[in-house]
């Protein structure tokens, strides 16, 4: 890197510092609840990091940059804070340098040089945050799959599958698999599917439930649909979905009573 340019920038450090701090202070955020003091510290660290980048070489390679990003994102500051800070810094540096009396060629050279410093940082900002984002999404996706559809054996020959949350195609497949495997594994004669936690029952969800119940029937067991809320009952009727093929109950409790009856079991109080 051109030592003359570095010197020029470092000589103007206080000036750049002032302008940059002024501009970045204008940047308002609604997502973060960071205190003004912490905010100032963050700004200072950001700026000194940028100066280090200029005077000591690339910071995007050795991890200092990553650590700073983590800190910023943990403070709930948006990505714009970083990109705007960088853009603002680039602009100020260029403005200040070109204020000096220099040749057109030299100015062009300086532009290129500044771009060459700033671009790796910008790139790694974008790369880092998108990687972080991807990781979050994939973690949440697998977390969602984990709480997907457990089949719980409750009494002899009776199992319950509580469904909670939105049912999409992937979950529907999982529900079917877990249901059928569980029925065989636990030798269930009756399976209660509880849809109390399913927010919307549309034709697709109903279709998947019907298919699952049908498959359970083929295995020789009975499926009872429980946890149908009044408003869900109304929408199912309006949609014209026929659920008469298998028994339904309003609550898990009633379904359990029915299941005990079907399997010839009784819960008795011991005196």
């Amino acid at each position, binding site marked *: 890197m051109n030592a003359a340019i570095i010197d020029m920038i470092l000589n103007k450090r206080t000036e750049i510092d002032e302008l940059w701090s002024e501009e970045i202070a204008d940047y308002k955020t609604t997502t973060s609840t960071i205190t003004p003091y912490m905010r100032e510290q963050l700004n200072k660290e950001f700026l000194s990091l940028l100066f280090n980048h200029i005077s000591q070489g690339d910071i995007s390679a050795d991890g200092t940059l990553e650590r700073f990003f983590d800190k910023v994102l943990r403070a709930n500051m948006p990505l714009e804070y970083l990109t705007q800070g960088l853009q603002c810094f680039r602009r100020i540096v260029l403005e200040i340098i070109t204020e000096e009396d220099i040749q057109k060629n030299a100015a062009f050279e300086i532009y290129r040089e500044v771009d060459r410093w700033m671009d790796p940082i910008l790139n790694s900002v974008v790369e880092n945050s998108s990687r972080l984002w991807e990781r979050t999404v994939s973690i949440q996706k697998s977390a969602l799959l984990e709480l997907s559809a457990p089949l719980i054996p409750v009494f002899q020959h009776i199992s319950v599958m509580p469904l909670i949350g*939105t049912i*999409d195609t992937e979950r529907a497949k999982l529900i079917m698999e877990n249901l059928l495997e569980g029925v065989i594994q636990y030798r269930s004669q009756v399976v209660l599917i509880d849809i109390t936690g399913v927010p919307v029952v*549309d*034709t697709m969800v109903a279709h998947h439930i019907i298919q699952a119940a049908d498959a359970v029937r083929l295995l020789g067991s009975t499926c009872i649909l429980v946890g149908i809320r009044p408003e869900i009952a109304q*929408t199912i009727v309006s949609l014209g979905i026929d659920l008469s093929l298998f028994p339904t109950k309003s609550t898990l409790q009633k379904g359990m009573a029915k299941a005990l009856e079907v399997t010839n079991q009784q819960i008795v109080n011991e005196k």
Partner: protein
Amino acid sequence: MDIQSCVEVCNEWDIVSARQLGRNMAKELGFGNVDQARITTAISELARNIYLYAGSGKICLEPVEQMGRKGLRIIAVDNGPGIRDIRKVMEDGYTTSGGLGAGLPGVKRLMDEFTIDSTIDSGTEILATKWLR
């Protein structure tokens, strides 16, 4: 009142966000529990149709007012292949995808007003309105 909120529908999770938007708007307008469920179910059906048959499109929701009545209108627009025989898709049990075939006739029953407009190879637009009682 012409504040319109739109949700682009390109994958299954967009159906969920369209639905949530619908539920929030219905709640704000003062719809009861049952009507909220009706509206969200209708949005779910329409959004799923977009996802299944057109690939992508959008669901727009707007509060409407007519002759002193307030309501919520769902506008489902796509640029998909269009519907060949509208009378047939409005029949119960007609399906081209192995589903229950209750979607569109179901939406018509769930909502108070329902219009469908479709052109082959250029897309479908469905308007469905629910009035506040």
